């Protein structure tokens, strides 16, 4: 059990990568605090974890709200005593040409994708510092490293997450709190359905086009990586960016 006795907070855990990670963490012995803006979805994830014999606390969570973060951290500590792992996973995907992008679009996406990560680190790391131990994993994207047409909004948000990760990693490097980012390529979630629809391709063609492995990734392949970064196996890793994209960024 690679996360035996650890407490993990996972945002956006009602679907996709967040849900897969919640289940994987629970199977590896973690108690999970799982949150989502869609409360019904995250309750469903919690039910599945409990059926497997795990422990989960499901909370409705607007990740762009500081008050909400304060409540989530309080609930987590009250229920399980501490927080060892934070996976800032919640986010949204918008593909939109520059000239069509409004300030409202911009502010909404930055709130959900960037302010969320800032607030998560701000409110969870103090709990980790009390025990001089913790691992934060922030979900960026290959869009946080390279450019794509019509990705000004999403790319800016994921680029911010990439750099914030390194900044906060440096701030707490000597205090036992590690902070790393993951950079998935196209992973088989609702985001890929959206990307396929927006670019008028089917999912298989999209996978073949975007990755040398010739397919989109599976959510479980990403949660494998998050587990590695959350566990003590990655004890000398901080401030790094881990690309998981079937080779897309290598060329």
């Amino acid at each position, binding site marked *: 059990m690679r996360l035996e006795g650890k407490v993990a907070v996972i945002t956006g855990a009602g679907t996709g990568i967040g849900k897969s990670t919640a289940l994987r963490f629970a199977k590896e012995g973690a108690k999970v605090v799982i949150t989502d803006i869609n409360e019904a979805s995250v309750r469903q994830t919690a039910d599945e974890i409990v059926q497997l014999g795990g422990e989960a606390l499901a909370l409705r969570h607007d990740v762009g709200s500081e008050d909400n973060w304060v409540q989530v951290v309080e609930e987590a500590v009250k229920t399980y005593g501490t927080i060892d792992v934070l996976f800032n996973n919640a986010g949204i995907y918008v593909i939109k040409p520059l000239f069509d992008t409004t300030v409202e679009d911009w502010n909404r996406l930055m709130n959900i994708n960037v302010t969320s990560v800032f607030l998560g680190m701000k409110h969870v790391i103090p709990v980790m510092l009390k025990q001089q131990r913790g691992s934060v994993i922030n979900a960026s994207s290959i869009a946080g490293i390279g450019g794509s047409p019509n990705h000004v909004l999403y790319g800016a948000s994921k680029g911010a997450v990439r750099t914030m990760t*390194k900044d906060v*990693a*440096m701030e707490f*490097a*000597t205090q036992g709190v590690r902070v790393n980012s993951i950079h998935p*390529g196209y992973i088989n979630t609702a985001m890929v359905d959206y990307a396929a629809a927006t670019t008028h391709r089917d999912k298989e063609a999209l996978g073949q086009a975007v*990755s*040398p*492995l*010739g397919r989109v*990734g*599976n959510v479980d*392949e*990403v949660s*494998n*990586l998050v*587990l*590695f970064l959350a566990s003590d*196996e*990655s*004890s*000398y*890793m*901080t*401030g*790094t*960016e*881990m*690309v*998981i*994209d*079937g*080779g897309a*960024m*290598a*060329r």
Partner: protein
Amino acid sequence: MRFQDKVAVVTGGASGIGEATVRAFAAEGAKVVIADFSERGTEVAEELNKQGLDAYFVKTDVTNEDSVKAMVDATVEKYGKLDIMFANAGIGAEGQSHELELKDWQRMIDINLTGVFLSDKYAIAQMLKQGTGGAIVNCGSIHSHVARNTIPAYAAAKGGVKLLTQSNGIAYAQQNIRVNAICPGYIDTPLLKDASDEARNYLVSLHPMGRLGKAEEIAKSVLFLASDDASFVTGTTLTVDGGYTAQ
């Protein structure tokens, strides 16, 4: 046991990061070939075999094509196949360009870059013959990404390893041969045994975590990349450096 029935080769497996990785693979069920120039590989293999694990020493010069080919052949003869290659063998040396002897440059390139090329070449050829796919982990460095002013040859070789890794990663993706590089910071290994306290403290100071890495910490990352858990990871680098390159 993530590596039950897998066959893994570790070049430079008789000491340091290589030895730690050999031990970690063996403990998780792999049959491990210790490919090293040093006869110490025999001792490591004997010790593991006494514990009921499975390891085999093949004396190897990674700069010599015939030697690498013979080592891969010996692996297949002994264990029937090759699933994982950790191309790890390497040396460290200082020396600025204006006074670096050509022979010292050449030795660095031969061991740290050509050695990785040859290890990849014969591992990939064998994996293609098997049709099974496979996983290759090359040993890069933080100096695949950033320089330091007294190690031009080392950084050039390790920079080469990074793009060799990306090239092989994309070239063999369709055959499901994954190729990634591990990029360690400075690790407390025999490569640093002769360093003075002052030099050592300087190296520590370069890492935001305030310590050097342990060989076992690198081994765990190699195992992640080599395992099926990393099935969507190819052509990339995994940096394990206590924050060195994030500054």
